């Protein structure tokens, strides 16, 4: 297992290098000059040149790239073009918000979604199955802005229990997490149901029943554990997506997560933030994938890595 992990970590470095090159090139290929954005629409050519000099954008591209990489390998991500604030602080403000959102909403989605899926599979064709699949369908189809705004209307405006504007308190995460959880919950419930159904038809389940084990033990100890591998994939992927920023949910609840930060920075052509932000997200995705793969082996002893 150890050599496998080492190899995968080496891959991470390759991914990082690729992301650095691609992000830099794409940012400089798309039209729109950061100096224009900063100096404003009415700026004179002289003002724009002044901003370019200040930000080092007057240098040839290879020089800019070399400087960027040089700073990067020393761990210096630079400062935002717009705010002059170090990129580490800008990301440091946004990343924990997205990370907490990802953890809370996926925990909620898993805790509710997996049992829903199991019940639906075990009681296939009954009312419980139908109800679960209706919930799952709703979770997939209801747009997050609709759900989020209605939660605000109910819990903030009508009942006055929770704030609609995120302020950093633990309770402020409840509504956005529920909003985000609905979609993942639906995916997890559906995935759990279908892989449970597949497992339940296997010979060993019949054997387990035949030797007189309690139905519940068969379902939860024998079937569920084996059905969890594809569910884990869904959870891992969703985790990456939510970490990458959920622009709509963030904007409804006025949270400055990764999505808000990156979209604003792309529109502002704030190169240092975009470059660092995308690098962090790409590495996140890669690490989560790695962890998911390793978890497979924990859940399913038949999976081994060499």
């Amino acid at each position: 297992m150890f050599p496998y992990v080492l190899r995968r970590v080496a891959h991470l470095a390759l991914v990082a290098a690729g992301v650095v090159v691609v992000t830099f090139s794409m940012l400089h290929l798309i039209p729109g000059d950061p100096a224009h954005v900063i100096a404003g629409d009415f700026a004179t050519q002289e003002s724009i040149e002044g901003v370019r000099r200040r930000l080092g954008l007057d240098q040839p591209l290879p020089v800019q790239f070399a400087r960027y990489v040089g700073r990067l390998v020393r761990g210096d991500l630079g400062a935002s073009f717009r705010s002059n604030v170090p990129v580490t602080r800008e990301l440091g403000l946004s990343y924990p918000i997205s990370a907490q959102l990802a953890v809370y909403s996926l925990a909620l989605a898993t805790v509710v979604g997996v049992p829903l899926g199991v019940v639906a599979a075990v009681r296939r064709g009954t009312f419980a199955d139908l109800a679960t699949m209706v919930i799952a369908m709703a979770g997939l189809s209801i747009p997050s802005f609709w759900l989020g705004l209605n939660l605000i209307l109910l819990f903030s405006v009508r009942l006055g229990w929770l704030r609609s504007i995120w302020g950093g308190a633990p309770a402020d995460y409840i509504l956005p997490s529920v909003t985000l959880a609905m979609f993942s919950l639906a995916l997890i419930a559906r995935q759990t149901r279908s892989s449970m159904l597949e497992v339940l038809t296997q010979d060993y389940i019949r054997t387990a029943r035949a030797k007189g084990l309690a139905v519940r033990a068969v379902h939860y100890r024998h079937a569920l554990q084996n059905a969890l591998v594809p569910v884990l994939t869904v959870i891992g992927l969703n985790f990456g997506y939510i970490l990458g920023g959920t622009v709509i949910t963030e904007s409804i609840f006025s949270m400055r997560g990764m999505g808000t930060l990156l979209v604003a920075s792309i529109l502002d052509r704030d190169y240092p933030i975009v470059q660092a932000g995308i690098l962090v997200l790409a590495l996140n995705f890669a690490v989560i994938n790695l962890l998911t793969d390793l978890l497979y082996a924990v859940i399913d002893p038949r999976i081994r890595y060499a």
Partner: protein
Amino acid sequence: MTRGRRWWAGVVCAVAVAVAAGAAGPPPAAGAPGRDVLRLSVRTTVVGLDPKFETASTVGFINSNVLESLVTTDFDGKTIQPQLATEWRAESGSSWVFKLRPNVRFHDGTPFGAQAVKFSLERMADAESVHRGDFAWLQSVEVVDPLTVRIRSKFPYAPMLSALAFYQPYIVSPAAVQQMGTQFGQKPVGTGPFKYESHVPRQRTIMVRNDDYWGPKAKVSRVEWIIVVEENARLAALLSGELDILTIIEPAIMQALATRPQFAVLRGPDDLVDRVGFNARKRPFDDVRVRRALIHGVNRMQMIATIFGGVGVAYDPPLAPGIWGYDPQTMGRLSYPYDPNKARALLAEAGFPQGFRTTFTIINRPDHRQIGEVIQADLKQIGVEVALRALDFASVSQSTRQGEHDMYIIGTYGVGDPDRVLPEFESANFNVRNRNFWADPEVDRLILAQRQELDPQKRLALVRQAAAKIREAAPEFALRWRRAVMAINKDVVGYRVHPQKWYVRDVSIGR
């Protein structure tokens, strides 16, 4: 079935626990007696606050509570009022002397005086400043004595007071700038009734009362400016009591609040206009008949009544009704009112009886798309097929600057000195502020002459002559001069809409 039922009960319990946990969170402070914190929502992202590096009006508006300038404008956006200068006089056309307010201190404790004025204004005009172009007139700032400065311009400059009253040339603490360096924009230090406490870029900005303020003290002890981009979320937060004032709202919110007695909608003159320009360097917009035809083809009255919710008035550029020099007698009636028949006739006369195809460059955001679609539909009626070209702001700015566009939409100024808008019609400003690429030697001469004419009556005549010529040539048309519309909780008392500043000093909360 018992197991199933027990399981469902578990889910219900979990949800109940989650909800109860939420209820334990901090309660919204709506209507709490003696509340001392004012919360306003800002719709656009606020990143930095240093006036030297920011062009966004929102930043200037927020700063107006913390930073002050030599002079400011009254609530009409036109009348000059003293602020850090108490009196001033022109020694000649290009030399003004300002007497400064005594016994004023910056928030960091250092004294305000002539040296700080010199430092701040020169800083706005230096090579790194994004406002260098706006201060091209500035020759020098001289310290006459600790409370007197002399400002010289490179040429007689009539709009100087207006330029100094804008929301950018604020006087900042030199000591704080030197100490904080590039981080000054996170917590600018000035002389205003509030001082910055904290600023989280792209999230919220918090200011607290300056108890040593030289003038009437602020009534609330703390003001929070919160960025809420989503329009429905802003409305919900106002209704739930989490926000007291929504700055600049959409018509939909006005309608939603109309039936709720706890909330009011405030209006005032706005510094913004929505205009559509033609690229007069490109065919067929080099023909004035085509430009006029297209203006006749757009039903602006209906546009204002529908998508703008009745807010704003159409006018003929360059002078919006809030700008000095506007004359309701001669400018009150639109030169090119909605008249599709006349539009078709003009197009035929110009050699386009079947109309033509063109593009309309807009910023890719909902209000522009809506405007674009209405204009597209209107112009289709006169045979002009418009394709919308929706780009992000950075691309629109660059593309129109280089003259790649046919038609484009711009928002510029609607109050104050006419010289804030006239540069958009000067040939010297092609590729910069002149994106119509239309110019006329006589108009160039008139604009330059009014800029240097210090006699108000003579200047007024020059401004109106230039305006008449521009109106005739129609290089652009205005959809509307906006009204600043804000939503407010009626618990909040004393807020007045100002077109260029969001002053909250005299605002109090109470029942």
